[in-house]
């Protein structure tokens, strides 16, 4: 709050209040508030644009009904005009792919690296550095960051949503550091569920199969009056064990139960209040030890006020508790308290300002074991953040430049600044060329500084007392084009320079600490295409090339221990087909090249879904990973063989009323 408030509003050229003679603090607050609420009208221009009128007039009613009236979030800019490598997985993409979990759904984003390790573990990243503890991606579910300060990443087995209620998943590859929160180094995943108003009625589904043994879900959406809508849902799933390379059962069966609610209240057309929460519990089998158990609860409130098409503000707060117990090795109880706001307003006719601020408190309590320990076991971590961005229209409808920065203060590396500049050129309505230069940092986490193996001296690994943040300077260039109404293509290329990447440094033979002694370059491009072949047939495809080159910067760094295990090439493909007599047949396929260290062979596989949908009922048969009997997707350890993912099938019955 301090950061953005201080730099954004008081000195902002719009307000010109610098000459004020030292107002009292109380007066200053009143002044700020007054400006906050009265100013949005300043930049509003008589937008009685004849071109716009002519454009809307030519549109069909269907097209008119698909236009967003106001944009209420940082990223509801229309996809085609966005100056970043964004891919959107729609509700329909998810429904038609037959995926049964959030990580599986992320496979549909061609710009992500998604590797399933076993029934419940995943490694997900973008533009390199993938691992089970991947740490360069920010993931949010309805505005709630699902981040563990334990390793600056995501415990994917604790993140479930009712896929039926997901509106879309936005995946931005490349630094989102300026507008988004901590950790948006290589990318941002933003899972957005539909409002309660848009999920009215009854939904029931259930089924079972080989790997996904059995599952069931239900949701009821209702309204109290014409302004207040709610939904409640619950879901449960049981997943079977996945095999080891030798075909033997790896004993990792996973069950998960989750329930939740969402309420949306529209006291007036300009205000929206949302309250939502979830609770979950699950367990995972372990070969020798007792089960891993996990549970969590969260509640989030958000108030959005829309002043006009160009101006809005939102205020959000949430509390999230998550707990996991792996019995023999460690247990973690994390409570996150988060408060954020953002405000967008026009400045004159050519500028649009977005600024915001946030505060987060993470209370992370770990139970150590003889094998490994975090010292101190319990930590309270505070994060202060603020951001400010100015988007300047250089040539109306043609050329835009956005410049902004994020300020952040964390308990590990102190004050961090993450600026970026983005240029968007739209030569015509069908083409967008964009370029960006950004700086982003990956803030340290507890595993970088507090992690000791074993729990008593002599330590094999003795933390990383001096561990600093990892730095990135990213250069991006992208092009999006719609050669026809049926086809859209996107190309995003990047050159990333990393400095002070994590290294494992030798202090004395057999003793290590974590330090920042790697430098890296990662370059590549992401190509994707959407093609509406016919009214009944839609195709999507993606190709990613990425090459990572890391060099140690100190003789003490262990050269062989490098961050991430990434393929150079990967392809993805989705076909969605409506057949006569209410049948649907859908295929998703992917090829991922070999992973270098530890070596995992490249693989090709595909999923297929056959469904029959009539009125309220849908029957679906889904086959997943059908190409081979089983295949490995990732290996984080050079000593243990990779676990494998088997071919599987399930059937599903759905009712929607």
């Amino acid at each position, binding site marked *: 709050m301090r950061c953005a408030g201080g730099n954004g509003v008081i000195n902002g050229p719009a307000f010109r209040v610098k000459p004020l003679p030292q*107002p009292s603090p109380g007066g200053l607050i009143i002044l700020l508030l*007054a400006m906050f609420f009265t100013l949005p009208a300043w930049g509003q221009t008589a*937008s009685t644009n004849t071109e716009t*009128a002519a454009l809307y007039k030519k549109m069909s009613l269907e097209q008119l*009904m698909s236009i967003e*009236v106001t944009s209420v979030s940082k990223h509801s800019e229309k996809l085609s005009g966005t100056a970043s490598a964004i891919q959107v997985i729609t509700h329909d993409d998810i429904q038609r792919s037959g995926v049964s979990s959030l990580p599986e759904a992320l496979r549909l984003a061609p710009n992500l690296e998604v590797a399933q390790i076993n029934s419940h573990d995943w490694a997900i990243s973008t533009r390199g550095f993938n691992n089970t503890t991947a740490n360069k991606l920010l993931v949010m579910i309805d505005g709630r960051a699902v981040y563990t300060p334990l390793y600056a990443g995501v415990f994917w087995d604790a993140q479930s949503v009712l896929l039926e209620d997901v*509106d879309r998943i936005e995946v931005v590859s490349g630094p989102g550091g300026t507008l988004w929160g901590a950790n948006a180094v290589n990318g941002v995943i933003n899972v957005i569920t539909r409002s309660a108003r848009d999920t009215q009625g009854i939904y029931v589904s259930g089924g079972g199969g080989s790997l996904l043994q059995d599952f069931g879900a239900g949701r009821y959406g209702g309204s109290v009056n014409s302004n207040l809508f709610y939904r409640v849902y619950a879901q449960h799933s049981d997943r079977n064990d996945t095999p080891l390379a030798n075909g033997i059962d790896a004993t990792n069966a996973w069950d998960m139960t989750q329930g939740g609610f969402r309420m949306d209240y529209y006291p007036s*057309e300009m205000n929206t209040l949302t309250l939502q929460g979830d609770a979950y519990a699950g367990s995972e089998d372990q070969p020798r030890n007792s089960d891993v158990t996990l549970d969590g609860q969260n509640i989030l409130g958000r108030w959005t006020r829309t002043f006009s*098409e160009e101006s809005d503000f939102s205020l959000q707060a949430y509390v999230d508790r998550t707990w996991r117990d792996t019995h023999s090795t460690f247990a973690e109880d994390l409570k996150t308290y988060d408060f954020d706001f953002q405000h967008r307003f026009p400045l004159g006719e050519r500028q649009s300002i977005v600024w915001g601020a946030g505060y987060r408190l993470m209370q992370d309590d770990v139970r150590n074991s003889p094998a490994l320990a975090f010292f101190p076991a319990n930590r309270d971590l505070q994060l202060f953040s603020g951001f400010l961005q100015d988007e300047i229209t250089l040539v109306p409808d043609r050329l835009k430049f956005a410049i902004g920065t994020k300020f952040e203060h964390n308990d590990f590396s102190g004050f961090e600044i993450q600026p970026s500049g983005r240029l968007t050129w739209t030569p015509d309505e069908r083409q967008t060329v964009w370029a960006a230069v950004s700086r982003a940092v990956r803030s340290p986490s507890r595993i970088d500084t507090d992690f000791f193996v074993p729990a008593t001296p002599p330590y094999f690994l003795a933390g990383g007392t001096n561990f600093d943040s990892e730095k990135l300077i990213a250069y991006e260039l992208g092009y999006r084009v719609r050669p026809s109404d049926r086809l859209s293509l996107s190309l995003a290329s990047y050159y990333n320079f990393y400095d002070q990447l994590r290294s494992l440094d030798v202090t004395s033979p057999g003793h290590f600490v974590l330090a920042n002694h790697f430098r890296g370059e990662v370059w590549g491009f992401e190509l994707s295409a959407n093609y509406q072949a016919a009214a009944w047939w839609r195709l999507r495809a993606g190709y990613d090339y990425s090459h990572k080159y890391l060099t140690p910067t100190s003789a003490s760094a262990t050269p062989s221990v490098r961050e991430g295990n990434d393929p150079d090439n990967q392809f993805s493909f989705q076909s969605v087909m409506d057949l006569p007599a209410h049948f649907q047949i859908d295929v998703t396929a992917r090829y991922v090249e070999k992973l270098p260290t530890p070596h995992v062979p490249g693989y090709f596989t595909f999923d297929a879904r056959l469904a029959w949908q009539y009125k309220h009922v849908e029957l679906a048969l889904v086959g997943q990973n059908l190409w081979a009997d089983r295949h490995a997707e990732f290996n984080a350890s050079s000593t243990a063989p990779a676990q494998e993912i088997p071919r599987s099938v399930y059937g599903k019955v759905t009712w929607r009323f």
Partner: protein
Amino acid sequence: MAVLNLPTRRRTRHRLSRLSGVWLVISALLLSGAWNLPAQTAASKEYQIKAAFLFNFAQFVDWPPDTFTNASAPLCIGVLGDDPFGNILDTTINGEKIDGHPLVIRRFHRLEEVQDCQVLFISRSETRRMRQILDALKGRSVLTIGEVDGFCKDGGIIRFVTEQNKIHFRINPETAKNSSLTVSSKLLRLAQIVPPGGD
């Protein structure tokens, strides 16, 4: 109020240092008013889109044969009450004809002024008088369009609703029929159908 206070603010900017104390108090007082003020832009994107909808509605509805005095008589789109469109409605229909009838825009302040108008958009400003207005128009071949809660229930034919940030519309086919209007099946297909007595 926010809009009103702006010019004042701009004029007094150079005197801010002297007037800052007073101004702070005024701003604070204005705060509560500003808070409830709708964005009064000349024509927001919402109304640019709604203007295009009105143009479309006029094309997808047939009036009884005796509505027009001759084949080239104008088809009037009226706005009753405060006009949220600014001049965007005029820009949208400028030079357009439907079945040989040139489109014209007319603005009315009071119900009594509404004469010879085939499409009537009833503004939010008339919310309190809505029932009365719609009762008075009952049975006349006027395509009534509104955007406030209860519009269809009170006897309006088409109501705009904003859902998930997008503009949709509801039609009460029963009321349309009672007004001797024929709504095309395409329009009905895209609309949310309001049952008799519903909204």
